Every structure is written in C-alpha cells, then in structure tokens.
C-alpha cells in the first residue's frame, strides 16, 4: 500500500479529464490524475502511482531507478502488482 509505483501515461481517457491510462510494469490500468491538476500530465510523462492515484510527476531517470528498487522488493512488489492488475476504477 505504501509503495509508489512509476507509471507512464499512455493516454488521458476521452471525456474523463481525471482519468488516464498508464502502463505500469507492462500492465495497462486506469489511474486517477485528479491530484495533479488539469493539464499537468501528457502521454509519455511518468508519474508515481499510489493506490490508484498519481501523486507526483517524476522524470524518466527517477522512474527507472524506482522500478529497479521495487524489483528488488520481491513478494511485496509482486503482491502490489497483482492487486493493481485486478483494479478497475473506471
């Protein structure tokens, strides 16, 4: 729950300015971008995702470093990704 997982914005969902489709570790899921402010992110941007919400915008280097750190966590990260893949917030 405490893990912030980097995700790359794939698209802002049509007609839903608060939702974006992001790719997180190969999984595409909708996440809420309402905490970042209108127009703050575009496709190709990276965000740190906490429990379905983008909490902050990060750069690609930070995203890569965080993903490597998460990979090293083992089960905790696997559990979080499994939970994420079952998530449907649209």
């Amino acid at each position, binding site marked *: *729950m*405490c893990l*912030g997982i980097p995700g790359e914005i794939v698209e802002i969902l049509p007609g839903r300015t608060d939702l974006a489709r992001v790719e997180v570790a190969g999984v595409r899921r909708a996440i*809420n971008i*309402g*905490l*970042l*402010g209108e127009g703050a992110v575009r496709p190709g941007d990276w965000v*740190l995702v*906490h*429990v*379905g*919400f983008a*909490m*902050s915008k*990060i*750069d*690609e*280097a*930070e995203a*890569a*470093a*965080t993903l*490597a*750190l998460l990979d*090293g*966590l083992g*089960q*905790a990260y696997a*559990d*979080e990704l499994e*939970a*994420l893949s*079952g*998530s*449907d*917030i649209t």
Partner: protein
Amino acid sequence: MRFVDEYRDADKARALAARIASLCEPGRRYKFMEVCGGHTHTIYRHGLEDYLPESVTLVHGPGCPVCVIPMGRVDDAIAIARQPDVIMTSFGDMMRVPGGRGSFLDAKAAGADIRMVYSPLDALALARRNPDRRVVFLAVGFETTAPSTAMTVLRAAREGVANFSVFCNHVTIIPAIKAILDSPDLRLDGFIGPGHVSTVIGCRPYEFIARDHGKPLVCAGFEPLDVLQAVAMLLRQLAEGRAEVENQYARVVPWEGNPRALRAIGEVMELRPHFEWRGLGFISQSALRIRDAYAAHDAERIFEVPGVRVADPKACQCGEVLKGVLKPWECKVFGTACTPETPIGTCMVSSEGACAAYYNFGRFTRRRVEEVTPA
C-alpha cells in the same frame, strides 16, 4: 540501466561512507531516526549500516501505517465486517494484522465477506456494482494515502453512492514525531524525513523540529545512496552547528507539497481530538476522521462500532520497536514466537515493518555484534 547505476554505484557508496566518517566528530555518538518504514526496508535490504561508522546509529521510527494500528481498531473493523450485508474492503497489507480476536483472514475464514482492493476507488466501484450491499473501505495510512481516500469520498458523494462508507484510520506524521521528541526514552540527533508523505505535506511542517527542538531533518529518497546522502547531510549540519530542514529528495518532493491533495484531505476530513497508536499510546490530534458534511459515508456513524481498547500481548514489544527504543532483534519474541508467518505484533506483519524487514534480510549475526559492543 544507466539511470539506476547513478543511485546504486558502489564507488559512490564508498565515497559517501568516507565522507560520513570524516564528518563525525571523534568521540561523539550520533542517533538518527528514519521515520518511514520504506527507509527501514532500504537500510536492511542493502546492509547500509555496514557503510556507517560505529558511532552512527540509525533508529527505526513509527512510519509504518499498518504497524501503528492498535489491535482494538482491527477488532472494530471485524465487528463492522460481520454486520448484515456488509462487504469489507482493505489493502492487502491489512489482511494478516492481528486484532485481539484474530485477523481479517481469520474473520474471512469464519464467513465474513472481506475483500482485498488495490485502491479505494475499487471499493467504490464494488459499491456501485452491488447496490444491495453495504461496502466499507478500511482506510489506513499516513498523508500518502489519505488524499486518495478523500478523493474517493468526494466522488461517492458527487455520484450519490449511498452504500459506500469509509472506516477512517488515517494518521498524521507530525504528531507522532512530536510524541517521539517529547519522549524521555530516546535522545535523537536528527531525522531522516519520510519521502512519500512529504510529496503531500511538503517540507514546511517539519520546520518546528529544527526551530523548537534544534534538530536537523533531511527528507530523503528510498535508494541506498539517497539514505547515505541524507546521513551525510545531517552530519554536515551538526558539524556546522546548524539545525535545518533540507530536501535531499527534491526530484520528487516539492517544498510546498501537493496543495490539491492537502485540499482534498481538508475538505473531507478533520483532526480527531486523540487517537491511539500502537506502542505510542494516545496522541492528541494525530489522526483524521470524516467531517460532518460527509457523515453519510462515515462507517463509524453508520455502524455500531464496539470501540474496545485491547492491550497488546505481553510478550510483544512492538511499542518499543516503533519508538526506536528497541531494535527488532532485541524483542523477546523476535524470530522465535513472532515470525512473518505467525506474527504476534504488527511490526512483523507489514513488509515495511522494522521486524519483518530485519527478519527477511537475515542479519542475525548483528545480535552477537551488539552484545560485545553495546551502543
């Protein structure tokens, strides 16, 4: 992986270790608390204590939201889950946390409808799909997760999802740090500030620690080099006679935090007069509850909540571990009666709990080292 190397480089770690050693005043001992469980995890996983001189001790703080939930609140959540038509939802981390009469997993096995969700928004979606059921989300976490709960309540209210409510257990980090600063048990020289909490609250709320208590705080990232650099920054402040709030994690943490997230929390939640923390006892104004305006989504007003206080098991020393008074391996039941498979205390349940982190990375030799060289 060129990006990653920047934060992992062994040469850089050694260079930082040398710098840390050179900043230490001979004969002086330093105790820094890392507030956040994520940092505890990094410290044990990467054996960062091996990079520090013997005079520098890292003390683990209360920053694991799963670990600080008192047993009585778990029992309350189970009591709600057992009421008619209820679907209780929770993050996976909470499933094995023991209450006074078992965990969520036990209650589920006994027939309660308890489901794991990734996001509070998943719980809201479940409520929409099951209009004849009452869906409750067990909200836990510091300021990192509170905005998500708040945004979900706002959405439930806007959409009129009347069968969705929140059992709110959100806690706030600043009062916990205050309680530790006021505790006579522990003398600290500085703090490694939490990374993700600070993306929401920013760095300003920590200023009292420097101003009123004369202790430096450095907000830090979660990479091994981040933590070492934060230690070096703390030592440099002490060497120069400064006590300030510094931001090592500026690449993620804005000084002012996330104003939208803070607004969402403020709109939906207010401070409770007091809240019980595991190990720290009752701390005034240290937790959040749902405001009157959103009472329709507040599980504590919708359901009968027993609110019974349950004392921690006698053998369990999570309290001392959470306050940083004891190291995990100094607890009487660590690794024997209390393991991640059969946890007695919360610190062994969550992967960010100090005990679980220490247990999983198998640094059992430490006990012998400590016995010959007491701190």
